[in-house]
């Protein structure tokens, strides 16, 4: 328990250990710790960014889906409208065609009636002539009385 030169040795040893520690031990360990801290911070930031991106993408996809749905319903509505239009058009055309057919039929019927009237007229005149001849008892000169007959026919 004497104070002797040991304390000088101890002081020198102390200084050397501290120097060594300061030079070769502390800086690399601290640098590594700092680097790891930075890596962890970066990783966390990247994760956060990824999460944000994901949320953004989800939002965007939902929007796209909504837009697509809207478009589809629009297209369907358009198709419906067009279909009813086509039906309307077809209806109108059919009506026109029907009217045309009816008019043609009517004209034919009128023609037929006219022709029948004409025929009847001639026949009536013949019958009337025959009847008149019989009534008069004599031959009527068809030629002489043709004017009269024609007048009669016109009257009928």
């Amino acid at each position, binding site marked *: *328990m004497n104070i002797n030169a*040991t*304390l000088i040795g101890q002081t020198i040893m102390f200084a050397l250990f501290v120097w060594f520690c300061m030079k070769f031990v*502390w800086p690399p360990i*601290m640098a590594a710790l700092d680097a790891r801290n930075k890596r962890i911070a970066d990783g966390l930031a990247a994760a956060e960014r990824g999460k944000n991106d994901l949320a953004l993408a989800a939002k965007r996809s939902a929007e796209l889906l909504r837009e697509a749905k809207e478009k589809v319903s629009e297209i369907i509505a358009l198709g419906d409208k067009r279909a009813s239009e086509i039906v309307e058009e077809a209806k109108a055309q059919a009506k026109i065609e029907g009217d045309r057919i009816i008019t043609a039929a009517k004209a034919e019927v009128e023609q037929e009636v006219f022709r029948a009237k004409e025929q009847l007229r001639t026949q009536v005149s013949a019958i009337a002539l025959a009847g008149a001849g019989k009534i008069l008892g004599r031959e009527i000169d068809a030629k002489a009385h043709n004017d009269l007959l024609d007048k009669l026919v016109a009257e009928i």
Partner: protein
Amino acid sequence: MSTEGLTTSAYIKHHLQNLTCSIQEGHFHCAHTAEEAKAMGFWAFNIDTLLVSLLLGLIFLFLFSKVAKHISTDVPSGMQNFVEWVVEFIDGSVRGSFTGRSALVAPLALSIFAWIFLMNLMDLVPIDYISLITQPMGIGHFKLVPTTDPNATIGMAIGVFLLVLFYSIKVKGLGGFIGELTLQPFGKFGLPVNLFLEGVNLIAKPVSLALRLFGNMYAGEMIFILIALMGASWVSFSFTNTLLFSSQIFLSLGWAIFHILIVTLQAFIFMTLTIVYLDMAHQEHH
């Protein structure tokens, strides 16, 4: 326990004696008794203190520099984990107590803590085991715990003191430092009183560092020696002897467990005080 022919006081003295050696009349000589060691004067070396502290310091630096060399920023494992835990603990302590910026203080604190911790830890080696190795080598005295040697603790305290002086002068300038010693707390007219008060304040730093550590470890060692004496009194099989022998086992176990706390605490206190003293040296207070 080779206590035959050894009295109790001789046993205690034996365990408190360093391996003190010096070069006398041209040849290397080691003291056999305390008187002989005293007669060697200042220029003698406690070989055991120097050897053990050197070895422990090298173990610390070897382990830590090995980790530092192969350190990776990936997930740490094993030894690197442990080293990083220690380093972060020290870094936290330094950040908590030291307000300035210095590349020296943190590694200094780590060296102090690890080195003193390892030296204190030698206290847990049963006190008579070392003589199993040294006795056959012809070495009479060998103290395994460097911190129970005041030379070791004073040596470290001197190192810290020199750093305190260096930084005081570097930060405040020589004039500022002298002014701090002489011009406060009572102004320039109370110069002698100021010098006395601040001088005591300054000198108290290394003294308190050295003596606190030495006193704690020396007292702990002394209690280990006294506990060891209980079993050493074994002569024949009797109730008293059996009781003493079993108490030695339990007491040394209890004291050793308690000592784990003291070992760590004293290392931590030395480190924290060093940080605080250096912080004070960096600050222009008052």
